[in-house]
């Protein structure tokens, strides 16, 4: 006999196998998902979900695909959350504090309640990365926010109405583009290719008969 638990999707009770995730439990209950379901493996943030365990006042947030059901779970998935992304031309920006002040001034309204960190489904220190953004420490903000999947649970809970994932994203793009050291070897290789230095070699290998290619492949040296 399967071990079943009682869960409540949008307030309605279903009995589902205890080893399912919230997402597969919804499907077991009969839901055909379009909203609230994306990669199903914890990378896309489509399945932001809030729940409360019966008898417990704490409100929790999670990704439905990465969370196992529990007895007495009251579950509501968040089909969409209107985070506020500002548009910009990345080529025109410079990596300084001014950028954050201009594009996301509401970060300075943070009251330090830490609700964002508590809500993070990736266990990131969200309030910390917002603090880095306030101070213009963009590289630190980028590192601290790197594992963000933009599920939006932080923004749902924020009394200062900050769109945290968008702030982290801007910091990462500025870091990747302007702050991280340039990769000269990439530039050099692109130039070599553009000058046609590999044209003849690539033509030659494309023309080789399969038997010769097999020999070349099977005897090629492999970097240690």
């Amino acid at each position, binding site marked *: 006999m399967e071990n079943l638990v009682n869960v409540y999707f949008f307030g309605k009770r279903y009995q589902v196998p205890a*080893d399912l*995730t919230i997402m*597969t439990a919804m*499907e*077991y209950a*009969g*839901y*055909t*998902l*379009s*909203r609230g379901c*994306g*990669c*199903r*493996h914890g*990378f*896309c943030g*489509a399945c932001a979900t809030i729940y409360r365990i019966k008898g417990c006042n704490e409100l929790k947030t999670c990704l439905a695909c*990465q*969370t*196992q059901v529990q007895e007495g779970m009251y579950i509501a998935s968040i089909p969409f959350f209107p985070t506020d*992304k500002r*548009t910009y*031309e*990345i080529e025109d920006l410079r990596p300084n504090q001014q950028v954050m002040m201009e594009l996301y001034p509401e970060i300075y309204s943070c009251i330090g309640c830490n609700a964002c960190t508590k809500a993070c489904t*990736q*266990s990131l220190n969200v309030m910390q990365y917002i603090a880095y953004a306030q101070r213009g420490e963009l590289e630190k903000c*980028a590192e601290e926010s*790197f*594992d963000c*999947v933009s599920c939006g649970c932080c923004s749902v809970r924020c009394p200062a109405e900050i769109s945290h994932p968008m702030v982290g*994203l801007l910091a*990462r*793009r*500025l*870091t*990747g*583009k302007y702050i*991280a*050291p340039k*990769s000269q*070897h*990439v*530039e050099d*290789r*692109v130039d070599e*290719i553009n000058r046609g230095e*590999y044209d003849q*070699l*690539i033509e030659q*290998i*494309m023309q080789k008969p399969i038997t010769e*290619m*097999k020999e*070349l*492949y*099977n005897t*090629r040296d*492999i*970097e240690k």
Partner: protein
Amino acid sequence: MFTESMMESIKKVEATRAARMATEPRRMTAEEKSELLKQYHPDYRAEGFAEIKIGPNKGEKAPVELTNLLHSNSRLLNEKINLDNPAYDVDVLVIGGGGAGASAAIEAHEAGANVMIVTKLRIGDANTMMAEGGIQAADKPNDSPVQHYLDAFGGGHFAARPELLRRLVMEAPDAIRWLNKLGVMFDKDEEGTMVTTHGGGTSRKRMHACKDYSGAEIMRTVRDEVLNRQIPVVEFTSAVELIKDDKGQVAGAVLLNMETGDYLVAKAKTVVIATGGAGRLHYQGFPTSNHYGATADGLILGYRAGAPLLYQDTIQYHPTGVAYPSQLFGALVTEKVRSIGAMLVNKDGEAYAHPLETRDVSASAIIRECANGKGVETPLGSGVWLDTPMIEILHGEGTIEKRIPAMLRMYLNYGIDMRKVPILVYPTLHYQNGGLEIGGEGFTKAIPNLLVAGEAVGGIHGRNRLMGNSLLDIIVFGRNAGKAAAAKAKEVTLGKMNLDHVQAYAKELENAGLNEQGVSPLLLPKYARHEK
């Protein structure tokens, strides 16, 4: 969180660890690999395939589930669609909101075209987002595009189309440069040198990464760029059929609002199919590492309009999918785990193969071990160990958290600390090696203004793809498709729009005695209990 019998086996893995770490397992010879594939690779299981009975690839094999969809009718067969008042009228219509679609849209926009994206879920709900390990490019002094070509051509069993593979390797360094310029945070050292590692079958360390969120970092960056450019993105809207004109060109697509059920018409001078893979068709009953929408829609659309498939009978099973716990069954464990040192080990603690054989070989060897009683039993089947504690012994404490944080987090959710104990893996359906056939410029050969980019293309990789060549292909071929589609749109004049090919296809099905199937494309897998 492991069972008692698993814990017993872990003791054997630990007992052999020091000895294993002292010797690199031997790589298989070409003959050994070929024999192993024939015996154990799922592509060689005849019962997993069926003959395609109609259309340009008539007489060839395809996976049973794909064949069923090819043998199905359009959902528009008995619908009256008014083509006269399109809801959208653009130069370039991009179908699919993954890495290839977003790259195509950016480049088409850059070229001045009026471009839009339609996608059946959200932009970024795509296999791109889930790619973990990295992206290849030959940009180090000891490497060259020619070496990259050799690795990919051999790894793909000498079946890649040379003109496509040439583009892939020659434009790889520029793809990295482009992404970096958009702000992708690649792993680099203090001097700016990219941190690169091996993947299965590479002869040079050319795997660039962004921790183990490589695809996510790329996807969220190109998505942000699409949104900054204010390119229209119509989400929760799938393309259910291409529209053609009386000159045999494509002229747009019929769209379905996934939430309201409304049909809409998009008219376009050029169309880019960037719909991705097919993991959610669960070929041969395998679990999959793919996202929810990976149902081969673009292949069906293109085929029904007359574009041929190539290598539709070859599928990639990623060797290391999660075998345990069951909540994560089939999820991807990035190849990077092996790139940075973990070995594959059987129930008895033996390193039965080199950890960095190509994916098809590596997957076949796991299937062999499990078939021969050398696997560890799990509630859903069996698996072999991936000896992750080796990584921290080799590179120092903290390496796993720094370089593969997503993997660590995924397992910790279920009480498994991969820094301390090995993890159980079994092959998972990962990638569609085949797809719609294109020429070197990205156009289908049958329809002059229809392009394909990304996983929906067949022939770039041959019959097996190397790690890191897929993130590369979506960028290289996505960008190229966007540029080519924008240029082509300038010279296309559309004729009278029609859906005659849908009726013609129905007739062909009927003549072949295949008129009782369901409808296709599938759009979403049937996971609700009452639909299964």
